[in-house]
């Protein structure tokens, strides 16, 4: 019993990270219709920046600087790439973000180095024993994981508040709803895109920070982020709650499948389980669990 609960918690923890990556995808897709393949590369880039800056300064300062870098990056991406590809097919934009992803992976490792770097946030490493009265043996929860999950939840809450209450948030929702209508009432589309890419950069930074403090920052971060794709398919491309729920489902399902089905199938099924789940969802309910129904004849 204790083992099951620990597996569930571990699954939910990786689910939180998948959810954060998926959140980055969804934000950009909603606002600009771009399926951002580069989110993983952005996570890597932001985490590398954070890790290397942190070697010279306290981490809050490094965080702020890394965020500034991500904002500049967002501006450059809008200015140099997206502006020239307005009104193109979704697939063209997807391929453009593939290009951005490659560029960022190269640039990030060239500027910041290509080793494994730790991010040290001064979090307590030792786990806490809970529920030891109820279940024999108790359940071990890492404090670090707990803080990470709480900060991720705080980020999501903050973003929701920003989208619902602030003027910019309202404008962003208008852009997401209908580009032309938003433009016709005077919302500057290009500035909104910079903002939304900057927010996605912030999400990437937080993701990279949490992941990096757990496992260290290295190149595989950008590959792990490919897990974000099935998550958004599962949750629905346009839904923020969908991204979060989808992330948790994928994280949980993957861990449980690995533990309980893995031995029968030879292990390592984590690598494709999420995709299988997404495929099943695609065939039954193409708009995902929470997505808007897009009527699209094929």
């Amino acid at each position, binding site marked *: 019993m204790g083992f099951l609960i620990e597996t569930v918690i571990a699954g939910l923890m990786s689910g939180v990270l998948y959810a954060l990556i998926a959140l980055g995808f969804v934000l950009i897709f909603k606002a600009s219709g771009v*399926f951002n393949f580069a989110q993983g590369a952005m996570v890597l880039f932001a985490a590398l920046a954070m890790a290397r800056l942190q070697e010279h300064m306290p981490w809050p300062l490094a965080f702020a600087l890394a965020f500034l870098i991500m904002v500049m990056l967002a501006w450059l991406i809008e200015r*140099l*790439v997206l502006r*020239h*590809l307005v009104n*193109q*097919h*979704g*697939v*063209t934009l*997807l*391929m*453009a973000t*593939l*290009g*951005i*992803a*490659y*560029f*960022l*992976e*190269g*640039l990030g*490792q*060239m500027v910041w180095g*290509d080793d494994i770097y730790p991010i040290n946030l001064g979090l307590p490493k030792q786990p806490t024993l809970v529920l030891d009265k109820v279940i024999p043996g108790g359940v071990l929860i890492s404090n670090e994981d707990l803080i990470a999950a709480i900060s991720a939840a705080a980020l999501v809450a903050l973003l929701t508040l920003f989208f619902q209450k602030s003027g910019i948030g309202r404008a962003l929702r208008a852009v997401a709803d209908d580009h032309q209508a938003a433009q016709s009432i005077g919302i500057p589309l290009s500035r909104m895109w910079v903002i939304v890419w900057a927010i996605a950069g912030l999400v990437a930074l937080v993701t990279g920070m949490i992941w990096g403090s757990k496992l260290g920052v290295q190149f595989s971060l950008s*590959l792990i982020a*490919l897990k974000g*794709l*099935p998550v958004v*398919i599962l949750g629905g*491309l346009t839904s923020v709650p969908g991204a979060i729920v989808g992330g948790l489902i994928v994280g949980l399902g993957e861990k449980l499948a690995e533990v309980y089905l893995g031995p029968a*199938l*030879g*292990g*390592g*099924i984590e*690598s*494709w389980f999420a*995709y*299988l789940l*997404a*495929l099943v969802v*695609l*065939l039954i309910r*193409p708009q995902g669990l929470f997505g808007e129904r897009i009527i*699209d*004849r*094929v």
Partner: protein
Amino acid sequence: MFYRENGQFKTSYVSDTQIFPILQDRWFVAALLAVAFVAIPLLGSDYLLRALLIPFLILSLAALGLNVLVGYCGQISLGTGAFMAVGAYAAFNLMVRISGLPLLVALVLAGLIAAVIGMVFGLPSLRIRGLYLAVATLAAQFFADWVFSHVPWLTNGSSSGSVTAPNLQVFGLAIDTPVRKYLFCLAILCVLALAVKNLVRGRKGREWMATRDMDVAASVIGISPVRAKLSAFAVSSFITGIAGALWAFVHLGSWEPAAFNIDVSLKLLFMIIIGGLGSVMGSFFGAAFIVLLPIFLNQLPGLLGIPASTSLISHLEFMTFGVLIVVFLIAEPHGLAALWNTAKNKLRLWPFPH
């Protein structure tokens, strides 16, 4: 002799529908084939053949296959590596398990097996498209990576899925020297490229292009989207499967599933974007470009006299690929092949522009 079609009259239907309608083009292609089949094997060094030309030929073949799917039929695929892996491991299994099976038969059968698998993973394309399809094909990629490293039967019981190609023989002739390998790949590439060129010029190609441009309109004029899409998946996977088998047998010799990982899939996608979507010529340009670029970048610091570490060069390679993709998508969405056509059209008027 100027590049002109003046005075070349088409007097029959056959002469109007040939692949290269201009006489000078035909001469050019004949010369190119003569160089490829005669001059290069005689003059090329082993290094040139092994490191440049054989990878170029095989990757062109794979890019050609992917171009059928993405360029002609408009179905995006991020899982090309998986179909190459299917071809490679299918050919391996056929060779190992059926003794005395000729290599060419094994290659064709491997291509057919890859075609079947491709059609299975193409099934989602009947319900979804674009971005969603990208995820579905990505599923094929990760699933193939896993299957070939975890199912021992497929790799004849070797751990970690690494296998070695058997001895290659065609018509009793051992394919062991670089020159023979080169000629073998070249011959297969020529046959398949001609087949694809004719396929896309014909009825099937029109069906694919109509589906790509607007599937609803295509089905209104009587094209079955199911057949168009699945046939594109089948043809594409057949070719990439054979390319995968060649890559494994001829180029690598011994390989493991990681040889066909997602990196390969993305590289192939880059080839056809840079080379030209929906163009047979473009597949060759793209493959040449992607094979040559890393070698050029490796030589560059030496030529300029700047010391650079290998890791720096590999990062630069990543960045160059990224920039090129974006530049081509913005400036020339039809890739190098479109530049080639523009140059040819300019040449037709040169030196008298009016």
